[in-house]
Structures are given as structure tokens and as C-alpha cells.
């Protein structure tokens, strides 16, 4: 069961240095705990099996205040064993922690993730401002490159967590946290907000695409492009609805008048793998469903259901599909 599902959203993964560390440490802990548990259960069973003894120190033979010297030795031995076990675990944990901390020293890519109820705003930072990239809900990482992700929140506390890559960190309004990781395996991973953040906490997922460096650079270049101009009349009609209607009050699409930042950036919406922060897979049907009535797809979402005429809906979806 575990093998088959490995990497997608599970800690049984070796897709990054961090999760490998985690797994090694977990195994150490499990071994120590298993030994200790076995000892406890063995003692329990032994106690149960011995119960019919005639010479037990019990009330019935008036010896109940007698202390068994063997048990006194046993207590000391047990106490020391527990002490040693815990010290060993604490040291293992310390070592893992140090080696995790050492990656943070030489990061080569800097990303800022800002959490919102209930989606992720993502910015790829670059010294060259024209290369700074704005997107949402889908993270692309080049394999083998240490990355630092700076974490902010615009509203309540969320938690950034991609189980197959690394542990989690909270995004706290008014504070800045960060997480560093080195992805090691190309693949698609799913992350999910881990701190309860209100109604749609369950639908605040994130797709992480770990890809070869060249692919990553190509992706970045592509994402920096503004949205393509609508080619068909239907798409054009959609373009008009989106950029002059209510959509533009929240979203931005680079290269168009829509430039609000309340909701996720839509410039390359159709190039992403999922819709509404992992609520739906990306696709025409899902776009229809979402645009027509977000409140029934993701009740409580901050995106209101906007009444659209059927032809407007067709147009909007047609336009959104062009945002590759």
C-alpha cells in the first residue's frame, strides 16, 4: 500500500534532502520505541503469567509490605535505560537538526509565498526586477538547487507543508518565517495548508513541480510573458467580461487592465495543474463549474458567485483557457 503511493503527498518519499533526513531519524526513533515497547509488554505478560504463584507477596499471606530487592534493582536499571534511550534520541534529533540547518547557508533560489484564505500567492524573487515572477498555487522548483522560501500571511495563520519534500512552517501575519530545502527527484508533489485557517482549510493545496533546471528556466521565461491576446471572437468576448467586469476587481492578468491582487494571479492560469488551490484539476469542465458557481464548489471561498449569462460563461471559459 505504502510503496505504490509513495511520493505524491506522503512522507514516505526521498524527493528532497529534508524528507530523507526525516525518514532516517524516524527509523531511529521507531527502533528505540519498539525496543522499549517490547520490554514493557514482556514485563506485563510475565506479570500476568506469574499470577498463580503461591509465594507472592500479598495480603493473604501478610507479606504485602515486603519490597522485592530484585524489583528495586530492576527499577534502577529501567530508569537508567530510559535515560540512556532518551539521551540517544535527543542526540539523534540534534544531529538531524544541525544538518538540516546547514542547507540554509547556501540557497540559490529565493521565493516568497504569501498565504491567503484559501490560496497561495507565489513570487519568484530576482535581483533583476524585470525577472521577478508573480504566480499562484503552483510552485516550480529546479531539482538539486537549494531554495529558500520566505513565508508571509495576509490574514490568519496558515502552514506551508509539502510532505514529500520537507517539514512545515507556519505563515503568520506580521511575522516572517522561512523554509529551506533541496529537491532531489523530479516529480509532481502535492502540498497542503496544515494549520486550520477557517472554512476552506481543507481546500488550500499547492502543487509542486520539481523539474530539471533547463525546464525550470524555460518555465520561468514563459511565465514572465504577459498573457496572450485573445484570438477568437468568443475569447475576446470573455476577455472583455473578465477585464471590465467583477473579475478584475480581485485578479490580475499581466498585459491587461486587470491588476488587482485580492485573488490569485491568472496570467498563466491554464498552464497550472489545478484550479482553486487544488480544489479541482485543471480542465474545461472544471473551469465551467468553478466560474459558474465557486460557492458550491468551494463553499465559503472568498470568490463570490457572479451571475453570468450562459454566453458570457462560455466566453469567460474560452478566454481563461487561452491563458497558458
Amino acid at each position, binding site marked *: *500500500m*505504502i510503496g505504490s*503511493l509513495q511520493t*505524491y*503527498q*506522503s512522507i*514516505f518519499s526521498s524527493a528532497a534532502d529534508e524528507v530523507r*533526513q*526525516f525518514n532516517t*531519524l*524516524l527509523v531511529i526513533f521507531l527502533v528505540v*520505541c519498539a525496543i522499549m*515497547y517490547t520490554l514493557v*509488554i514482556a*514485563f*506485563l505478560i*510475565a*506479570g*500476568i503469567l506469574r*499470577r498463580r*504463584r503461591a509465594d*507472592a*507477596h500479598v*495480603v*493473604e499471606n501478610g507479606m*504485602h*509490605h515486603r519490597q*522485592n530487592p530484585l*524489583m528495586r534493582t*530492576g*527499577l534502577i536499571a*529501567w*530508569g537508567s535505560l*530510559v535515560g540512556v534511550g*532518551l539521551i540517544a*534520541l*535527543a542526540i539523534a*534529533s540534534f544531529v538531524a*537538526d544541525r544538518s538540516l*540547518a546547514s542547507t540554509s547557508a547556501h540557497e540559490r533560489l529565493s521565493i516568497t509565498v504569501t498565504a491567503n484564505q484559501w490560496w497561495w500567492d507565489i513570487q519568484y524573487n530576482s535581483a533583476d526586477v524585470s525577472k521577478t515572477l508573480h504566480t499562484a498555487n503552483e510552485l516550480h522548483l529546479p531539482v538539486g538547487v537549494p531554495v529558500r522560501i520566505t513565508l508571509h500571511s495576509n490574514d*490568519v495563520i496558515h*502552514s506551508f*507543508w509539502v*510532505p*514529500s519534500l*520537507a*517539514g512545515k*512552517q507556519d505563515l*503568520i*501575519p*506580521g511575522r516572517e*518565517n522561512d523554509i529551506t530545502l533541496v529537491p532531489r527527484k523530479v516529480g509532481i508533489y502535492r502540498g497542503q495548508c*496544515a*494549520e*486550520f*485557517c477557517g472554512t*476552506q*482549510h*481543507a481546500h488550500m493545496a499547492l502543487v509542486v513541480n520539481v523539474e530539471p533546471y533547463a525546464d525550470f528556466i524555460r518555465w520561468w521565461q514563459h511565465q514572465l510573458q504577459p498573457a496572450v491576446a485573445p484570438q477568437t471572437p468568443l475569447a475576446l468576448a470573455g476577455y472583455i467580461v473578465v477585464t471590465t467586469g467583477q473579475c478584475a476587481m480581485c485578479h490580475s492578468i499581466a498585459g491587461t487592465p486587470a491588476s488587482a491582487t485580492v485573488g490569485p494571479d491568472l496570467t498563466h492560469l491554464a498552464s497550472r495543474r489545478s484550479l482553486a488551490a487544488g480544489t479541482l484539476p485543471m480542465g474545461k469542465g472544471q473551469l465551467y463549474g468553478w466560474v459558474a458557481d465557486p460557492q458550491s464548489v468551494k*463553499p465559503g471561498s472568498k470568490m463570490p458567485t457572479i451571475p453570468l449569462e450562459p454566453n458570457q460563461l462560455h466566453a469567460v471559459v474560452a478566454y481563461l483557457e487561452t491563458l497558458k
Partner: protein
Amino acid sequence: MKPAEHDKEERRLAEERKRIVRDGPKLKGAKLEARLERTWRRPPGFLGWLATVDHKEIGRRYIVTALIFLALGGALALLMRLQLARPDNALIGASRFNELFTMHGSTMMFLFAVPVMEGVAVYIIPLMLGTRSTGFPRLNAFSYYMYLFGGLMLWGAFALNIAPDIGWFAYTPLSGPQFSPGKRADIWAQMITFTEVSALAAAVVLVATILKTRAPGMTLSRMPLFAWAMLVVAAMIIFAMPSVALASSMLISDRLVGTQFYNQFEHGDALLWQHLFWFFGHPEVYIIFLPATGFVSVIVETFCRRPVFAYPVVVLALISTGILAFGLWVHHMFATGLPRVGYSFYTAASMTVAVPTALQIFCWLATMWDGRPRFEVPMLYVVGFIVTFVIGGLSGVIIASVPLDLELHDTYFIVAHFHYVLIGGAVFPLLGILTYWFPKITGRMMNETLGKIGFWTIFLGFQLAFFPMHFAGLLGMPRRVYTYPAGLGLELPNLLSTIGAFVVAASVLLFVVNGLWSLYRGAIAPPNPWDAASLEWATTSPPPVYNFEHIPVVQSRTPLWDEKGELPVVTGLRVDEKETLLTTVVAATPDLREPVPQASLWPFIAAVATGILFIASIFSPWAILFGAIPAAIALTAWFWPKDMKRQPEPVIT
């Protein structure tokens, strides 16, 4: 008053003092019982029922109320489990689900687990210590009513569809004015106020009772381990509750009068909440767990036929757990971005608390080894406790490690951990001890066969429900999600958990059915059915209102085992008025005779007045001002003597 009048008054009092009736060789047996019964019984009728200050009645109400909340909280858990049985299930919507786990967690922690332990203690501790009453019996009654009203308010709000939906630890800013408009979060915060007033009152009652009312000769080193556990727990409540009280008052005032404690835009800090909450919240889990270790000690001692091995070690373990518990709160906040240099320190600190627990476990097992255990139902629950709790404790050690917790935090692995320790560590011993003390409380035995079936089903059902949750967590399932997508491998563990949850529920139901059936049909209990050693079994079952005809004297840790023939007792307490004996704190030598308050409606009225104040303050801050007046009047009337004539010896009317 003129001196002459004063002297006359003193002479009258001296005269009356001679006519006081006391127990002793001249007044004993049936005559004494009748006399005590007349003095101690409460007024009849419904008002008398409300006015009672008998710790046994209050304790029983506490236990029954808490068990009802267990059923209610458990019913909500079943709804959650139904929703989670399948991926993308549409049975329960997002906001309703959020209410469910908030209500479930808050009910279980604040309205079930802590109060049930207090209730058992309030019932049994005075009997165990060989006294007639708790200290401050009216405060005890007040404590119960505050608890009841807090619970009614929360569940009333649920019925009116304004239940809180912010989780049982209500993190700011989600619970603050901006992100939780409406009254839901206020309801939660005021429920906290009710239960904390109640728990603090109960804690003060227990400390005073345990320190001052023990039977003569019951030195601290002869005190039953359950009393030790409750002493430590009461002290922990006293130190921990103020923290959540402060946190929730600040939350309410942020919401109600616009203070900025948690508002980062106005120099506040959202993390302040987490520090204050967990400074309480972590000790809280040991407040639930330590009484259960007391139960285990009681059961192990009786059923292994010998005192618990290494009594001083167990006592020290209790005390050190109590102290260490205040240093661990940060382990709930590992993911908040604490200074990295501290990580290893927090890890080590969290792990040290495993040492006293491990020592206690050894002591119980050594007692079994040295004794001759009898496996009746309470003892089965102890075995179930060890097998289950240790798994939870070990998963606790795993998540105490920062690098591990950063992955596991806020996942179902944590949900598995805390149900293992809460249910395995506290509910199993509780069910065991309820079976054990059932004859004491009701005079009848619980049915053994049903009890055994119940044990095995709950034990196995529990593992089925909660063991798979470890895997759900490792497979990436965060907690507090109302649904999860198909294809992540979460289908099987969740389905198993749901099936298991229903088995657990059925076994709890069976326990209740067994209790109700046995209440009317159970075998009549002999006075000391398990042949136990402690003083609660020295009186009849159920005990008379005055508990003991004479105050017993204690010469060892296991008095009923060591006094083979007659029981030594002291005499000379008043029996024409309610009176009990106080002893010194350490050596338990007789110190004072203490009048015991008569039944009174005022604690109830004061609780009603305070309750109105708390609830009204959700709607307007002025309620605090106007509500304080009736509350102050009620409290004054509570303490004001109802009879202004001087008595030969003090009485509390």
C-alpha cells in the same frame, strides 16, 4: 455591648456548651447513626436538591453530567467519522464540520475529561481520607453549577446554530474580531470562563480537603496515591488555569471593546495567544492524565493484593510530572518559527517528562509481578491502559523531536497520538475505576460479563479506530480537514477509523447500559466487594450522608488490610450540628474541630447571577458592570450568617 451584658452572654454560652451532643462510648451504633442522619441530611424537595452541599451528591452530578457530555462529544465524533469515511464526501459541509471538531474537542477537554476527574475526586476523596465533607462544600456546589451552566451555554449555542468553529485552541487572529465576526468565538471564550471558574473552585476545594481533612494518622506518606495524584492535579489547575483565563479575557476584550492584544497592526502579536494558551494547554493534558494514573494505582493495589511498589517513587513521579509539565508548552508551537538554536533544548525538555511516566509504569508492572493479580474488569482496563497508553506516550516522544514534528505537526499522526493518550491513558482507567467504585456509589455491582465484553470491544475497536490514523498522518492527511481527495491512499485508513469509531461508540453505549441495568438489577454489593485497603471501603455502600459514624484513625498506608479486627476511631465530634475534624498538614494529628456549612441555595443563586453576567457580556460590555451587582449580592448572602444569635460553638448557616 456593656461588659456586664457581655459576661452574662458568655455564661449563657458556657451553659449551652455543656449540652452539646458528641459521639463516643455513650453515643454509638444505631442511635448515633439516627442522630447524625438527622443533623446531616439536606432539606427535602427540589429546593433542597439544589441547595445540597453533600460532596457525594455533587460528585455524582459531576460524573453523570460529564458522561452525558462524553456521549454528546462522542456523537459529534461519529458524525465527523461518517463524513471522513469516504474521500470527497458531501455528507457534512465545511463550516458544519469545523463546528463539529471544535465542539468535539472543547466538549471532550473542558466538559468531559477535566470535570469527570474532578467529579470522581469530589465524590471519593473525602471518603478515602476518612472525613465527613470536603472543605468549602458550598464552593464545591458553586463549582458544579458553573460547570453545568458553561456546558449548557455551549450546547445551547450549538442548538441555536451559533456554535464556535475555531478549533479547541482558537488561534488568533482566526478567532479575533476581524476573521470571526458574529458570536461564535465569544461563546467559546465564555465557555472557557465558566469552566475555568469552576475548575479553580474545585481545585481549591480539593487542595484544602487533601491537606487539612485527612484522618488522624494519615500522614502525607500514608496518603493513598490517588489523593497524591489529585493534590498535584489541583495544584496544576491552580497554576495553569490563570493562563487560559488571561488569554481568553484578552480575546474577549479584543472582540468586544476593541483592545489590540492580538492585532499585529497595532503592536499586538498573534503568537501571544499561543504561548498563553499552551502554557495552560500542555499542563491541561496532564491534568487529565494524572488522575487516571491515580486510578491505575488504586486498581493495581487492590487487584494485585499488595501496595503499589515503590510508593515514594510514584509520588515523586507525580510531582515531577506536574512541575515539568509547565516547561513544555513550546512543543505545540514548533512550526511557528521559533529561534532555531532552541530546538534541541525544547526536544530534550519534552522528552524528560517520559522519565517519571516510565518509572510509574515500571512500579505498576512490578506490583503485578510481585503480587497475585486478579483479572476482573477494572484490572482488565489497567492492562488495556498499559498496552495502549505506552503507544501514545512513545508517539509523544517521536513528536517531541523538532525535526520529526515539523512533518507530523497538525496531521492525523497527532490526532492518533492524543487519542491514544487521552482514551488509552485517561478514559480506559476511568471506565475501570467507575466499574470499581460503582458498588461504592450505588450499592450494587456492575455486571461482570457485560463489563468484560465491553472491555474487549472498546479495546479492539479503539485500536481499529485510531491506529490507522498514524498512517493517515504519514500519508499526508492534515487534521481539521472536512474532506480529502481520492488517490492519496487515505481511503483505507479513514474507512477503518470510521468502523472502529462505531465499535468504540457501541462499547461506550454498552458500558452505559450495563451501568443503568446494574443500578436497578445488579447484585447487591458486599461492603468491601474487592477487599480493598483504603478507607472509602470502611463505611457502608452507598455511604450515609455523614460518611463515617466516627472519624477513623490510620496507622499504615493500607489500613483495612492491616487493621485485622476492630477499626480504631476518634470520638468527640459534635453530632447535633455538622462538624468535622481538621488535622495538621504533614503529620495529620488532630488540629481543629471545624463546623461544616449547612445546605444553602446561595451557591446556586450566585452561579445563576454569575452565569447571566458572563453570557450577557457577550452582547454588551456593560453587562459586566450591571451583572456584577446581583452577583455581589448573592456572594454576600452566601457568607452572611442566617442566625445572628451567638452559638455555644460556631456553626455555618
